[in-house]
């Protein structure tokens, strides 16, 4: 599975996770998780955009 924000490979063991519309999403870092929470739709529609502020 991939991090919906940066596109990196992540697994279910990642401690950075959230639930949106009943579905679980996992992230590689707190930065990506925060970015997703700000605007989940943007990432779910537009796909990963690379590292936030990167």
């Amino acid at each position, binding site marked *: 599975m991939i991090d919906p924000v940066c596109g990196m490979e992540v697994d279910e063991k990642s401690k950075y996770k959230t*639930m949106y519309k009943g579905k679980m999403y996992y992230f*590689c870092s707190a930065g990506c998780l925060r970015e997703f929470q700000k605007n989940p739709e943007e990432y779910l529609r537009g796909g990963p955009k690379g590292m936030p502020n990167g």
Partner: protein
Amino acid sequence: MDKEEELKIIGMHCATCVLTVSKSLKSVRGVRDAEVNLATGTAKVILSDSVRVKDLIRAVRKAGYDVATDRFTIRVEVNPEELPKIEKKLIETKGVIDVNSNASLGTITIEYNPLVITKEDILREAKIKGEILSSEKSEKDITYREFKDLSRRLIVGIIFSILSLVFTHYSLFLSIPVVYYSGLRFHRGAYRALKNKSTNMDVLVSLSSNVMWISSIFLPNHPFFMDSALLITFVLIGKTLEAYIKARMSSDIIVEPYKARLKDGRLVDSSKLNVGDVIIVKSGERIPADGIIDNGEGEVDESILTGEQKPVLKKKGDSVLAGSVLANGYLEIYVTRNWDRSYIMQLTQTVREAYNARVSIQGLVDKVSEVFVPTIITISIITFLTWRFLLHSTIISSLLFSVAVLAVACPCALGLATPMAILVRVHRSLKRGIVFRDGNVLEELKNVNLVIFDKTGTITEGKYSIVSKKEFIEGAFELASIAESKSNHPIARAFPTINGIVETFEEFPGRGIYARVNGNDVIVGNKDFVLNNCEWNVEDKEGDILICVNNKAGGILSVRDKIREEAKDVINFLKYKKINVVIATGDHSEQVEEIANELGIKYYKGLTPEDKVDLVRKFKDEGYKVMFVGDGVNDAIAIKEADVGVAIYSGTELAKSAGKVIIRSLKDIEELFRESNLAIRKVKENLAWAFGYNIIMVPLASGLLYPYIFLPPEYAALAMSFSSVIVSLWSLVPI
């Protein structure tokens, strides 16, 4: 000139981390390039000479990672006033990250980069001799050894000084053991200092005693052998007293391993215990290790660690800490941490570091110390020349005045004034359960003008109760209760305990939980979280906690948490001090507003831990000096970010909490500000004494008020040696 530094980075697990770390390193001004390697976990940094490794580490830590460093403590044979010079030399040594010296104990703690340099190389390059302290115990041995050595020399000094007073004809011979055995420390110290192109108190003592003793050989009619011996003896009296105070102080913060009883009845030192051992503790015994109760129960008195006098009932599964006492009962304890990592050892380490605090005023003191001795020697020479050639005095009296100037001047008190005051305050607070992990906080507190409180568990008791509930789906509340049984959140504890099968469970800190209970999908959490994940099919959505069952609105709850009794007093105290107060909480509910209104303060609600950090930064950018008070675990990052981070201790995970200060309850906040005032006042008083003493005594010794007041060199030495004793004792005097 560029140099290369290699760092061992901790906590990198993916390519993003590599990017983050390398970006954080490159953001440090003066870094030319940084190459981070995930496989080896290292970073190679090319940097200009102006960059300190400390800045690199700070940048990495700020990005949320850590750098592996090593540290060791060394006891050096120098006087307090020489320490700044040695620190400077060490800091300039490649691979040295940070240096903290403690004048009151004569120790230097050096943090270094083990990839670049070894302990031995540091000492060799900085040309420092001393004894590396391998453990707390050796520090105690050393301070006591110092005291014993001084006592021995003092006894010899006293015996032979008295003999030379009685048998004046033999004073030449009788004074030799005093001046050249008892006084050997001073001559050695002076030689060492001069070799290192520095000066210290030893130079003054050695010079004054030698000038008197040697000139006596050429002045057979007026020998000063006895005076020279008395001078050394008087200085030793003060030095021995001072060493005694230090030894007492340092032994107070040293924890000896306890005796532990293994299950087979063998007694071993707690330092020999391994994780996984099971030990037995009987009523009235001290608990020798950190662990979990495997069997039995009893009342445990943790006052040595927390200052809390009331024993706490502990049962199977509860954790216990080394150093606490089993007031009554019987415990079998499974050891979870070895001795060196135990909480009490971490606490002593923390406190010892706090003692090394440098107060800003110390900068001025260091500058004065540097020029102090050369200035005194100059004054002494001028004194001699003035009496001899301007006032046409005899050689003998001119010599007496000039030697008295050397003997009376006391740079030691300057070196001791700050550390002694801080040491005593940190120590006193510790006995009351307030832990200063950084002595500088005592000074920083004075500038705090905004306090941010976490709400749950800090301002409030953190014990929620459900005050109203609506169910849209029958049984929703029961399902939510079963799901919440898996969570440790304070709100989860408001739900009744109902047993059921939880197949999957996910927790989203600060927002809610998702669980599969008895075949149903259950989501419980704050409004935003639940509405984002649920087809909420009813109009009503106003409440603190929403429950969603199988993607449909299940129910709504309102919860309440009580304000702590002491919260109002503390906030009124802060307002009285004209300090701004705000609440920052993850809670979204209307209750935040009610609590803030009741306390008459501003609030920020619905914040994630990261938002709290941003809030702290925002206030700092606006020029506030921010104190953040939280429970130390959830708020760790905000506590770290604040100028003064205060963690309220409520549990055994204290060692993990982030605060520079750790307190037991909100009540201690007033105490903190009081301690800060007292510490700063003590430092100022000590310095006023140290400066004032020299400003008054040096002119007196030079014969300014002669013949009304005359200070023979041996009495000048007595005054000098008591000057530093007074600083030590004055620090101990409660205000």
